[in-house]
């Protein structure tokens, strides 16, 4: 059987053809875009932070009745308290490493600024996030230094939360280094932060370190981080702790008790106070994951509905054409010829749906690009989408088509 008689017969069943064709077109358009969105979300969630994420947890705590960090004496007092806390954590047998730090990747609590190669710049800043902390920052994070050196104890200073201390040395990520110095190594170069005239020397370059912000607006500088060896003294502090392998739970529990033993005048929130990095990551990408799940569900529902539509319409047609199937059998059609007829018929309807669907898919993507700053969908998604709906159609039609192929030839003489 070739297509001509199939098309000829379909012309007499336009309503059904248009209905299923449109359903296939819509499914293709929506599924392509949904899968593209899922793919984008997954690649967002999957992008590396640049740190060693296992056995890592973050303690956030507040001192009760702490002095103001705006005075030198207050800042000194707070710094002593932080150092005591860090020392107590470091003492724990389940703990491998501790760093006093202002934030960490994916925490969505960030201190951002602009960096320039010129003093007192008014424009031309490169956006960056600042990580403040002690000399243990890099090693506790497990980020990889690719050039220069790590901070040592001598580099580290401390300053009140709102005090503008000098920042003689910094470490930056490779990504930021390339943006600041596109034509050569950034190592040893001088940079200026937030339009200040106070120079900072880049003493080390980190392969990769993601910023705390995971929102879309921060995606343009997602890997442009700067590490500053200054402990920021405030009424609250954060400690990044790397537990010994297999001792995360024990370390998290012990950390809580140890801190209260050092100084009971503090608050550690039950939920947000001591968090594993895994939970920070899950929180950061909660929306992306639920969006991906929603889109996935939409795809599955649409595909199921389309398959059901095809099964339904074809079953109806098979019922309607029982007599003519018997006649075709009487005239010499084999069972397989009847099966092929319905498979080809569906391929043809789906083919028309696919043509419309491709245009729709591109249109929907175009609309998303214009209104939601989505990326343009690569053609590969369309290609796979087309394949999926065509295969789905063939599978869906198979069940009623096989029933049709089993209509006995005697139906030609017996049925009314």
């Amino acid at each position, binding site marked *: *059987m*070739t297509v*001509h*008689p199939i098309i*000829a*017969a379909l012309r*007499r*069943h336009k309503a059904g053809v248009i209905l299923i064709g449109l359903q296939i077109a819509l499914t293709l358009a929506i599924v392509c875009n949904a899968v593209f969105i899922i793919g984008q979300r997954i690649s967002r969630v999957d992008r590396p932070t640049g740190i060693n994420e296992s056995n890592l947890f973050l303690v956030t705590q507040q001192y009760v009745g702490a002095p103001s960090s705006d005075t030198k004496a207050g800042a000194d007092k707070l710094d002593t308290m932080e150092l005591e806390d860090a020392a107590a954590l470091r003492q724990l047998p389940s703990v491998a490493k501790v760093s006093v730090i202002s934030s960490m990747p994916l925490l969505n609590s960030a201190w951002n600024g602009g960096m320039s190669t010129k003093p007192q710049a008014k424009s031309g800043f490169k956006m960056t996030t600042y990580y403040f902390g002690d000399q243990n920052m890099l090693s506790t994070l497990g980020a990889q230094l690719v050039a220069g050196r790590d901070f040592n104890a001598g580099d580290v200073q401390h300053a009140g939360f709102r005090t503008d201390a000098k920042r003689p040395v910094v470490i930056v990520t490779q990504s930021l280094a390339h943006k600041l110095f596109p034509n050569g190594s950034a190592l040893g170069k001088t940079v200026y932060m937030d339009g200040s005239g106070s120079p900072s020397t880049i003493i080390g370059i980190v392969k990769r370190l993601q910023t705390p912000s995971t929102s879309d607006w921060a995606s343009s500088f997602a890997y442009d981080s700067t590490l500053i060896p200054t402990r920021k003294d405030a009424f609250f502090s954060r400690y990044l702790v790397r537990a010994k392998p297999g001792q995360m739970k024990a370390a998290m529990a012990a950390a809580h008790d140890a801190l209260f033993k050092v100084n009971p005048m503090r608050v550690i929130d039950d939920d947000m106070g001591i968090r594993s990095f895994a939970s920070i990551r899950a929180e950061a990408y909660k929306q992306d994951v639920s969006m991906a799940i929603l889109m996935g569900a939409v795809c599955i529902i649409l595909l199921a509905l389309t398959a059901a539509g095809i099964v339904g319409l074809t079953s109806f047609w098979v019922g309607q054409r029982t*007599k*003519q199937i018997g*006649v*075709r*059998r*009487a*005239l*010499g*059609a*084999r*069972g*397989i*010829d009847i099966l092929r007829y319905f498979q080809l018929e569906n391929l043809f309807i789906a083919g028309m749906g696919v043509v419309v669907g491709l245009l729709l898919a591109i249109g929907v993507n175009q609309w998303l690009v214009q209104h939601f700053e989505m990326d343009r969908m690569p053609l590969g998604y369309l290609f796979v989408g087309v394949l999926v709906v065509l295969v789905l159609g063939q599978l869906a039609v198979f069940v009623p088509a096989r029933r049709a192929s089993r209509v*006995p*030839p*005697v139906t*030609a*003489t*017996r049925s*009314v």
Partner: protein
Amino acid sequence: MLKMTHLSKVYRTEVVETYALRDFSIDVKEGEFVAVTGPSGSGKTTFLTIAGLLETFTGGSYHLDGVDVSHLNDNARSKIRNEKIGFIFQAFNLIPDLNVYDNVEVPLRYRGMKAAERKKRIMESLERVGLSSRLKHYPAELSGGQQQRVAIARALAGSPRLLLADEPTGNLDTQMARGVMELLEDIHREGATIVMVTHDPELATRAQRNVHVIDGQVVDVAEDRVFSTSQLAEHSPA
């Protein structure tokens, strides 16, 4: 051409067994024109569907064109139907979604014939039945007599050796019936073997040989003359 010996056909439902044919023997020679008559429910259609390989039988033997067909699989039976047999049904059985041309083409496509050859045969057989000017018409746009002539063209297009017709004039008025009958007689004269089931005694007499079926059995011609139409009715199963 068509030889059935002690053939039986039993329809089994959950409650009853119906012997549609029992000890049914018939021998139709190549080139014969046989009319099959008999009361309603006597097994005429059953005989024709078995003869046309539309259905299998329960016992006995059936040789078609010298071939024992009882062991053929479904595909082989389809091939024989397609190449050797032409069917004409009481209800015409044209495919409503296809126009006249495409209807006649159906069996030729199943034979895998080249387009040019198909076209030649379609045009020839439609000319034969006098409908070559109605190629683009759909069955619903034709009279009953015209539809049956398209069905005959469809049966003829494949040049079958055996033509099986089940009450081909049953749905037609007398004048159209006569036209169809004349067509069948022409076809017969050109060498085709024809087996035709009919209720019409007048048409039956125009065939070379009459076969009478009662209660699933062939009764011989001499006995045939004994029955009047009203007596025949009493033989039909309740």
